[in-house]
């Protein structure tokens, strides 16, 4: 029979040890605090001020006006002027600049014949209407930078000429739900909850059993009547509270500093968080029963942490990954939590709508507890 007295004994022992370990205790608060501030401000997928250069072969008023219009978008920051294309490409290769705007000598004629300007007489030939007025040469190795420059492709030329241009009618009307201002933090803040919890929760428990072994307490512990499941539960319960504190710090600061409100229900949030914390904690426990020392447990934590950051959908959309990678991502608790927390924070989804992820995390936790308890032998051989 499972004894609550024994679970309670281990629970309080863990709390006391945690309280005396000032460094770890501090990290519980500092990790979410610092990382949220850092990443909340730093990570931004709306690229601005890409350093750029210009090769102006025409040197006319029109070309200078074009450069000013491009500058006004704030996407690029024109820092260098080059005599010719070769110099400009060398500068890209040196990484002085990321992109070059090449303005041909005949920009005035091109512009006059450009469909957006629409100088009708004499009628433009097909060849003339398909000619772009200038060219961007971009360092394409970073796809996000390249994508930002690509966005300039259809830049309106309204201000370029002192006459109203024929507005072309867009093919699609786009309505942006949930994050109309396209602020990156709306996606980053809930995502960080998943990443920080993955890191701290797995890290804390992955060392839990190994530490007892390394400090020599294990030999005493296994001669007592304590059952593996009691030990496992006693070890993870304190961290459920700690995980909840961390979530509160991240979402509280996310609201006050970055204005990211929790749109969904708080009970849904609590439920999803509880499931994810217990899943991560049991994953840590399983690691702890495999690792021989704390260094090994740390290595295994990093082994789980990296795919949790890169494959969970935190950095790159899940849908964009190849099918095999999606299967791997599905195996990680962080992927399921990422979906749930973003749904709750941004889209006001409730847990019933995400029952697949709920069941998955619950099963993961149960399986983890069983595996950890079975792997934990009350023997030394």
């Amino acid at each position, binding site marked *: 029979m499972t004894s609550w007295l024994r679970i309670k004994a281990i629970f*309080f022992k863990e709390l006391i040890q945690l309280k005396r*370990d000032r460094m770890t205790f501090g990290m519980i608060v500092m990790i979410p605090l610092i990382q949220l501030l850092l990443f909340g401000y730093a990570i931004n997928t709306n690229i601005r001020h890409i350093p750029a250069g210009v090769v102006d072969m025409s040197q006319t008023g029109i070309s200078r006006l074009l450069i000013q219009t491009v500058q006004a978008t704030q996407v690029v920051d024109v820092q260098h002027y080059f005599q010719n294309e070769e110099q400009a490409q060398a500068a890209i290769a040196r990484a002085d600049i990321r992109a070059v705007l090449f303005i041909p000598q005949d920009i005035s004629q091109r512009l006059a014949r450009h469909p957006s300007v629409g100088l009708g007489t004499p009628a433009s030939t097909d060849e003339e209407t398909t000619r772009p007025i200038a060219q961007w040469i971009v360092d394409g190795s970073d796809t996000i930078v390249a994508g930002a420059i690509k966005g300039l492709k259809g830049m309106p030329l309204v201000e370029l000429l002192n006459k109203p241009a024929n507005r072309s009618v867009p093919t699609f009307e786009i309505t942006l739900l949930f994050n109309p201002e396209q602020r990156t933090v709306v996606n980053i803040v809930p995502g960080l909850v998943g990443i920080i919890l993955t890191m701290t929760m797995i890290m804390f428990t992955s060392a839990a059993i190994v530490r007892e072994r390394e400090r*020599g*307490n294990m*030999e005493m*512990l296994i001669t*007592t009547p304590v059952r593996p499941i009691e030990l496992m539960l006693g070890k993870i319960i304190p961290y459920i509270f700690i995980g909840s504190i961390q979530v509160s710090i991240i979402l509280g600061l996310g609201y006050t500093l970055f204005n990211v409100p929790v749109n969904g229900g708080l009970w849904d949030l609590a439920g999803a968080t509880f499931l994810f914390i217990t899943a991560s904690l049991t994953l840590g426990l399983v690691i702890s029963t495999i690792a021989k020392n704390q260094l090994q447990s740390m290595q295994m934590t990093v082994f789980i942490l990296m795919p949790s950051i890169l494959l969970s959908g935190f950095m790159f959309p899940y849908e964009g990954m190849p099918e095999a990678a999606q299967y791997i991502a599905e195996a990680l608790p962080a992927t399921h939590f990422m979906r749930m927390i973003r749904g709750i924070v941004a889209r006001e989804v409730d847990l019933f709508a995400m029952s697949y992820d709920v069941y998955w995390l619950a099963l993961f936790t149960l399986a983890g507890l069983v595996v950890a308890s079975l792997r934990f032998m009350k*023997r*030394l051989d």
Partner: protein
Amino acid sequence: MSNVIIKASKLTRHFEHVKAVQALDLEIEQGQIYGFLGPNGSGKTTAMRMLIGLLSPTSGEIQVLGHALPQQAEAVRLQIGYMTQKFSLYDDLTVLENLKFIANIYGLPVKHQSKRINELLSIYGLEKKQSQLAGSMSGGQRQRLSLAAATLHHPKILFLDEPTSAVDPENRRDFWEQLFDLSDQGTTILVSTHYMDEAERCHKLAILETGIKRADGSPQTLMQNMGANVIEIEAQDLRGLKQSLLPLDGVISAAQLGTRLRVLISDHIQNPVAFLQQQNCIHPQDVLENVRPSLEDVFVTSTGRSTP
């Protein structure tokens, strides 16, 4: 069945290339203080761990309190106490917190806990230390705390693995007083040691060497039946004398004790004093005396080693 509560037959344990314990037969009666005497690596800890159910034997059988180990290890958990060789309570918990933890783990009812803990604190002289972190205490204090923790649940059998290796002689004597008190109350104690004076205090002991039991019995029986006589020689140049005596047939060992040489002579030599006096290296003015054997002599004759 008599009151044998620990019984092992042909107990064997091999680690990859090491035969840690080989065909060990044991019978320990209730209330005895039973000692394992042997040098480091003689299999004392391995044997003890098997008797607790922490290690599975490679072959052989174990019965502890009527339960077969290691299969029924959980059944005896509440009835045994184990004090590990290395301090295994929590360094970052205080004396009181450690004892409370153990009390809860052993399921001691909450209302009896403080009474029992206070009792232990007073028996083991830890009242003033109760709020001190275990990690900051001296070797002797930690040893007393370990014993308090191991006996908190009134175990029937107490296993002590080299309990006094980290404490000074005075603490060792006090510690043994406490063991005799426990034994008096009916607790069976199995203790491993490499100290002769400790082994001599046991009711019965087994001498282990490289995993094999070389001799067992009470210290007195062992000394009577050791199959050798002890002669002490007072002479000049004891170092040289030792080198000349050792190759002789019948001389088991020779060890210098201050100004005397202690020589063990196999008992197939009828008159050991006369035998020695016939040797060239012994001068007429040298003093030879037949003395009472010690446990150390038993150890030397049964293992062929000079020190444990």
